[in-house]
């Protein structure tokens, strides 16, 4: 009878400290790629979504087409989205980013638009009465008041993007998804579990970070929360 190997990698266990210590660089590279893909996609989506939402708010007729288009984009499955964009971008990181941008757009446009629409008419009238032009009204009154709704959308989009990046493994740019994909093919339990847990950790950390940013950007919200408590 041979004794079981004392190496948890050789025994192919789910939880294995040895995995992290021997493949630190591989895991670190995957985490960095995961963060980069998520951050770049969400930032591009944000840059596109804000003008779209403002346009849809300004011109009523634009709202229907903008919302319909972004909803259709959201309906297309991630795997299919990557494939539809394949002829345009080839097998590249841009393919994954483009897919994620299109995904995040729906969530962001909807939430920002809802935030802008919730700005009370009296508030806008008051600002106009104080001589605010349309641009100043938008930048200093409407957008800040839409911030809580917009940030809620940004948090959902970011958390969803973190988990969707994994599907990018099919074209080789999936961050931690690459580790999960290769781990599946080689039946490497420690790698699959470690990468999956790291995905969730990144998503939760990103959500908490954005929640912190939201609190910092909207101090009046916490003031009203405190007032409601007392």
């Amino acid at each position, binding site marked *: 009878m041979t004794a079981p190997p004392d190496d948890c990698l050789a025994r192919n266990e789910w939880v294995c400290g040895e995995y992290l210590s021997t493949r630190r660089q591989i895991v670190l590279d995957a985490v960095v790629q995961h963060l980069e893909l998520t951050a770049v996609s969400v930032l591009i989506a944000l840059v596109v979504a804000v003008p779209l939402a403002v346009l849809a708010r300004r011109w009523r007729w634009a709202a229907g087409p903008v919302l319909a288009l972004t909803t259709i984009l959201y309906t297309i*499955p*991630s795997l299919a989205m990557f494939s539809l964009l394949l002829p345009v971008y080839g097998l590249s990181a841009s393919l994954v980013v483009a897919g994620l941008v299109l995904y995040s757009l729906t969530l962001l446009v909807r939430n920002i638009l809802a935030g802008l629409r919730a700005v009370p008419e009296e508030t806008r009238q008051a600002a106009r009465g104080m001589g605010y032009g349309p641009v100043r009204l938008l930048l200093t009154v409407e957008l800040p008041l839409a911030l809580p709704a917009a940030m809620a959308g940004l948090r959902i989009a970011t958390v969803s993007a973190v988990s969707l990046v994994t599907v990018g493994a099919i074209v080789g740019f999936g961050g931690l998804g690459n580790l999960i994909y290769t781990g599946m093919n080689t039946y490497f339990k420690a790698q699959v579990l470690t990468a999956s847990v790291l995905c969730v950790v990144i998503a939760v950390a990103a959500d908490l970070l954005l929640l912190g940013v939201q609190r910092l950007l909207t101090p009046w919200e916490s003031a009203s929360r405190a007032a409601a408590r007392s």
Partner: protein
Amino acid sequence: MRTLTDAWAWLTDSAHWAGDDGIWHRLTQHLVLTVVCLLISCLIALPVALVLGHLGKGGALAVNISNAGRAVPTFAVLVLLLLTPLGRWGDGPTVVALVLFAVPPLLTNAYVGMRGVDRSVVQAARGMGMTGRQMLWRVELPLALPLVLSGVRIAAVQLVATATIAALAGGGGLGRIITAGFNLASTPQVLAGAVLVAVFALLVEGVFEAAERIAPGWTRGRGDTG
């Protein structure tokens, strides 16, 4: 443009529709998988949401579960389950992963719908001597139905879209056409598969939208006559 016409040619080639790898078979697998997962998810999520909503308890729980659900990568769950003993049971891992994915939006929407029912209406029902069970079935549920249904629609459409991931882990469904296309480096086939899934998802969205348009009228009708 060339790729588009090639994809169209792939789609319209009758040879690609027949057989075990054919479009019909994959479409049927996809439909069955989606319907089964949607039914199981509804059976789990809706009773819990309706009872919690009726009692007015667990609101934070319902919302937090929904938010946490988004953070869990379905693909990772699928692969994890595949490596457990459950992996030997055919589509088992796929069904469990997809149900875990669909329960949160169902739960949150149904709960929010139940809590959104006008409290004065509920008070009136209580004043008329309705029991808790009667209030749930005859007042709260009909009024909450539009939001409950919109949760089912969201879950159904996202299930159709996400079920493609099953193919990455060797499962069936339309995703198989896409992954096979990737393996063959055949862009027309990948495109054709993607179009099929997208059209399927949009069809489901359309069916539910029609149902939602009918539902409020139906509940109103019942309220008038009953």
